């Protein structure tokens, strides 16, 4: 069932153990028993075997925690997946390693650690499909690229059609995806039932009439994505500075000069703002507004149960999506609250609404106990598409507006943002996602195309 994703080859399994060993090591380091040095070794089955023979005393920290320098060529604000991926591809694709990634909390502690880990690229509009498919294809090889197992599990993803309108919409998406080179297909109810035996096709309110299936969609370990990128960035000599809050942006003649932080003033040539829910606050420090509103999005997980569903299922009409984690928990997400909110906790009635809808479609989950519930602050744009753009201030670039679906885009977002920051002008992936689209009325309207959850 869900663990089949890891059967591919032995090194993959070894990497997975390596990731666990790194976590054990990270915990030890926090206790002060380990030296504070960047890692110097590849994770491999041989490293595991060697360490197994000496009580795992030889692991070093996965990334360094240096004090900030007075100046960097590029400062990335936000050490979530998108910020770290931006830094990583700046180094890897453009050779820019004089980079600091600064983070007010801890690495990957925002939306990167709060999402439901879904990866897909079945978007309707061409620019979206290109960007998300780039991300999905980078996810395929990311564990090998980073030498860090991100547990990418392309287990397949189904978006349920539960109204006649959704049937037409998703069939249209299949045709669009085929033209875009994104592999998706239409499933009729019986094919869908074969893939998801626990589904109830004749729901009293919303019967399941078919589905949009992406076989190479799936999930990944969200924390590991941030950790893997952080380790690779640190290894290139970049500085990852946690517990460092940006309190101001210093500009001179319309050009960025420095950021003021809780660890002092740090100069920079270029500044990349990659802070999701707090994008408007950073923009305000730099003196401009963004077409963004921040709202709470919630998720919850059940107690762990035996493997019962080895695909990701999204039901957009009733606002619910569900997958089963490797630990056996049913991971459930729903819709956002409708009002501005920065508290990282959402409204109870959304939990009720989500669970009520999913119980109709999956009757067997009705007696599950829910273990944890949490919220994240998502940055919503008017057309529900992201912003990868230069700004009114020279040298400042924003990567935001990923809304409820940023995790799936992390590698592609970092790839496109790195190009934008390095060259100062967007490449083909980011070109359509500029801020000027709102002035020009050139929307990438996924809010209509994708229904709701996306």
């Amino acid at each position, binding site marked *: 069932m869900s663990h089949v994703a890891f059967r591919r080859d032995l090194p993959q399994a070894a990497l997975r153990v390596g990731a666990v060993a790194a976590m054990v090591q990270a915990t030890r380091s926090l206790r002060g028993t380990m030296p504070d040095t960047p890692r110097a070794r590849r994770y491999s089955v041989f490293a595991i075997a060697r360490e197994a023979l000496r009580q795992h005393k030889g692991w070093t920290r996965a990334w360094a925690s240096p004090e900030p320098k007075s100046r960097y060529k590029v400062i990335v604000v936000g050490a979530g997946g998108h910020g770290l991926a931006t830094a990583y591809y700046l180094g890897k694709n453009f050779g820019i390693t004089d980079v600091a990634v600064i983070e007010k909390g801890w690495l990957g502690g925002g939306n990167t650690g709060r999402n439901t880990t879904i990866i897909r690229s079945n978007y309707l509009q061409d620019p979206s499909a290109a960007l998300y498919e780039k991300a999905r294809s980078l996810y395929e090889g990311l564990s090998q690229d980073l030498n860090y197992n991100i547990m990418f599990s392309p287990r397949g993803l189904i978006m349920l059609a539960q109204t006649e309108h959704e049937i037409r919409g998703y069939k249209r998406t299949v045709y669009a995806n085929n033209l875009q080179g994104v592999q998706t297909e239409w499933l009729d109810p019986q094919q869908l039932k074969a893939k998801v035996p626990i589904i109830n096709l004749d729901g009293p309110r919303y019967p399941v009439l078919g589905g949009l299936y992406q076989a190479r969609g799936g999930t990944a370990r969200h924390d590991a994505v941030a950790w893997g990128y952080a380790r690779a960035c640190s290894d290139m000599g970049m500085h990852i500075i946690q517990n460092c809050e940006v309190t101001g942006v210093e500009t001179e003649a319309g050009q960025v000069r420095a950021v003021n932080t809780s660890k002092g003033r740090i100069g920079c040539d270029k500044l990349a703002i990659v802070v999701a829910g*707090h994008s*408007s*606050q950073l923009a305000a420090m730099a003196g401009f*507004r*963004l*077409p*963004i*509103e*921040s709202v709470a999005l919630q998720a919850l997980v059940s107690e762990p149960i035996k493997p019962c569903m080895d695909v990701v299922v999204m039901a957009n009409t009733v606002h619910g999506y569900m997958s089963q984690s490797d630990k056996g928990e049913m991971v459930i997400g729903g819709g956002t609250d*409708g*009002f*501005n*909110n*920065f*508290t990282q906790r959402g*409204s*109870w*009635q959304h939990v009720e609404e989500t669970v009520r809808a999913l119980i109709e479609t999956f009757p067997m989950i009705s007696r599950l106990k829910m273990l944890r519930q949490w919220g994240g602050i998502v940055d919503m*744009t*008017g057309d529900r598409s992201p912003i990868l753009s230069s700004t009114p201030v020279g040298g400042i670039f924003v990567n935001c507006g990923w809304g409820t679906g940023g995790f799936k885009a992390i590698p592609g977002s970092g790839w496109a943002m790195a190009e934008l920051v390095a060259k100062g002008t967007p490449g083909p992936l980011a070109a359509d996602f500029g801020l000027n689209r*709102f*002035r*020009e009325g050139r929307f990438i309207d996924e809010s209509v195309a994708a229904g709701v959850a996306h």
Partner: protein
Amino acid sequence: MLILTCPYCGVNAEETELHPGGEAHLARIGPNGTDEDFESYLFARKNAKGVHFERWRHAYGCGKWFLAARCTATLQVFGTYRAQTPHPPADIVDAIRKARPDWTPDWTPAEGIAE
């Protein structure tokens, strides 16, 4: 759960009875507006972390639009008021100042007196 008092019918309505309508006090741009004006009016938002003024409709009640002053960082509600005002009325400003001494309005006080 968020509970707002409808200033028209006086009902303490919880959020499932209400429909959110986004940032309040946006100046509507007419046919002579520039592209920049329209972009600002239609899309750019303050998205404040803290004191925030917003529109709500008492959808499953009296059906009327009203405005609320609320803190987006703590979910504290400072008060609700009628929608026919270009700026929050004095009693709302006082209630906010009492709870947030550091807060200052981003409009000039003369404009603030609407009722």
